[in-house]
């Protein structure tokens, strides 16, 4: 079954937008509504849209990795981010912060294992949802 030209054309635009949006949501999550969970859901939506328009095979090719691999990698990233806290000798999953180039009135650019953890969550949610949806679509 081929989907309509309009859907296919619009998808090209929308998928890119959705993915950028998802990363924006992920990054702003610490201070504004958003975060890894929401970001992951949006990213998954983007790929699902692509799968609806161009088929599951195309979506899988666009992903490059198997969605379950993405989910597992995400879990590993989250664990590594948590375990990182053990290096300075803190309890697991303790936040570690580094502020780059602090200025007179700004603290600087914050870098933390918390963000890495959130990226892990993002990958897990995206990978898991896609695992489920793509498998279900291919099944039907």
């Amino acid at each position, binding site marked *: 079954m081929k989907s309509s030209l309009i859907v296919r054309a619009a998808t090209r635009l929308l998928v890119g937008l959705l993915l950028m949006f998802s990363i924006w949501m992920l990054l702003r*999550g*610490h*201070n*504004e*509504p*958003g*975060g*890894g*969970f*929401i970001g992951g*859901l*949006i990213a*998954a*939506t983007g790929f*699902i849209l692509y799968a*609806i328009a161009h088929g599951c095979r195309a979506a899988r090719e666009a992903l490059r990795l198997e969605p*379950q691999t993405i*989910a*597992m990698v*995400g*879990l590993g990233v*989250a*664990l590594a981010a*948590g375990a990182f806290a053990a290096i300075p000798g803190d309890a*697991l*999953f303790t*936040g570690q*912060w580094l502020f780059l180039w602090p200025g007179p009135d700004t*603290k600087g650019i*914050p870098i*933390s294992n*918390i963000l890495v*953890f*959130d990226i*892990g*969550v993002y990958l*897990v*949610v995206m*990978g*898991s*949802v896609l*695992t*489920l*949806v793509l*498998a*279900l*679509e291919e*099944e*039907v």
Partner: protein
Amino acid sequence: MAQSDSSGRPLGGSAGIISILVPGALFVWFLQFLPAVAAGETILFRIDWVPSLGVSIGMLLDGLSLSFALLITGIGTLVTLYSSSYLGGHVHYTRFVCYLLAFMAGMLGLVLSDNLLALFVFWEITTISSYLLIGFSADEAKSRRNALQALLVTGTGGLAFLAGIILLGGVTGTFDLSEIEGSLADHPLYLPIFLLVVAGAFTKSAQVPFHFWLPNAMAAPTPVSAYLHSATMVKGGVYLLARMNPTLGGTEIWFWTLVLFGGFTAVFASILAIKQTDIKQVLAYTTLMALGTLVMFIGLGTSEAIKGAMAFLLVHSFYKAALFLMIGLVDHGTGTRDATVLRGLARAMPLTALAAGLAAISMAGIPPSIGFIGKEFLYKASIGSEFGAIWATVSIFSASALMFAAAGIVAWRPFTGRLAETPIAPHEGPWAMLVGPLLLACLGLGLGIFPDYAEVLVRPATAAVYGSPVDVDLYLYRGVNAALILSLVTFAAGWLLYMLHGRLRDRLRRSPDRFDPGWDRLMDGVLAGAKWQARLIQTGQLRRYLFVTFLTLAVALVWSIWRAGLSPTPDLGDDLRIKHWAVLVFITAGAAIVAFTNSRMTSVAALGVVGVGVALIFIMFGAPDVAITQLLVEVLQVVLVAVAMLKLPVLNREHVKTIRGWDLLLSLVIGVSTTLVLLAVMDTPFDLRLTVFFEQASAPIAYGRNIVNVILVDFRALDTFGEIAVVVIAALGAFALLRGTRRQSR
């Protein structure tokens, strides 16, 4: 059966050599503690393992645990040496060695642990490795069944034991044996603790009525029977009782339970021993007799009785391991274990016959073996007991007489007389299989002649069990006394029984065994029950599962509302604006459409309306993160349902009508009761401490202004990690299910 290793690698290759060296080295290592322990010292090592739960890996070396440790490693070395030849050529020999070493580690841990919880873990390791060893010939149904029986009986007992440990720990405030002091006899929880611990000990040490698994465990290869089911594992229960004697002993119920069950097991098992034709089975039942005797004498609890029990423990380990190994040699050399067939093997298998003879002297309790000394001390203790002297004396006397006869059946009759026809022409076994039985049998005799060497172990062991030092003086002959006279009567009675054993056996074989078929019936019953409940609950219909789940929830909700007598006073106040009412109407309308529509598409869409309405509520009350998530999930759900819709069967409208009423009723009950509970929650003053903390701490400590996200990824990151792990597992599970059904449908 025995697989000879004439062509295989010497000593079973590297696996075999490791399996011999490890216990051997450990034996030597434990020997160095002997002088200190013999002098009455207790050695304690400790490493914290789970400090928050009070679990430590402690090693407690006193007379009792050192005796056991030396037996485990010493006999272990001989048994592994024996196995390297007996099973060295077996395809799964390496596997066997792993099981055996795992068992050995478990057993050592069991007797050395100072911490009761660690002791329990090791206890279970012995249970599991014993299961693997009994079921070693896994292609035989009988061996699998017997392994499972042993696992279930001892495993169930193990659970009872665990409950007992937890109670004990709660009462004494410690799980460390070295720190438990005094007796618990007057504590209100004494009875449950006692019953649970005894259940563990009785199943492990196969006391009547749990005895039936032990003879069946003889499905294991012979070295395993020699090691686990005579010298070590089955004594785990005895060890436990001995260990608990200072804490739980000394009460009437302890005394009578142990003395009655132990005595009955001893006599009952010796009678069944005479009934067997398979000499391995004869030995299996005499092991039961020994376990019963040990339990009975620990129950008697006098210093004399404990002394006798500890001496007998040593005696029994030597002769029983030797005899089992001897039977392996006979099986290996002749191809049969049938007592009615085997005759006159002494000429063909002289060394085996020598080992058998020496071990049998000890088993029958004939001087100058250590077996004689052990029996004398048992007699002395039972005659001298303040209570139950008659019961104890009669049981130990009849058991000993029967034991004398059994020794004759196992170790005298097969070797004497005219050589009979056997499946294989009788021949002697290889040296690796002869060392063990010969050494053990000679030890039994040597320690009898020089009992001072046995005292070194018996004295501290007795002191550890009795709770205070006891003077132990082992001797062969100190003038004529009641015990000696009883011994002489035992020999006469035993000899008579041996002469008559053929006729006795025929008589006994006419009465059927009730325990084993009873076990099979019990198992059938359990299986039937499981099938019945699976048919009842597991219908395979998603709708049915959801209905049952929500029904349970509804019952719980209604019950708690009724119990708490909730009558909330809804205070709607002026907070509600038109927009709130609008959302309310929106959601209710959506729900109503779901309930009454006849089209799947409509109901999915209407359900989406409900979801969006809920998201609106989240937005109005300041939870944008939750609202976004809710909306996204709603979108994804529509996609999922739309995909699944293609596969769903056509709706049966008549069927829907009949079940919809019930579904509606259930939904209403849940809706109303949830609302009531929520209103009641709102009535109670709201504890804002956590909210305030997060509001204040979020930005300065975690550098984030979005509290929800900061909690998720920082304050409660570990929880989140657990949740995303669950998400991955759920996705993988669903993936496997979908792929699985696809393969099936092809």
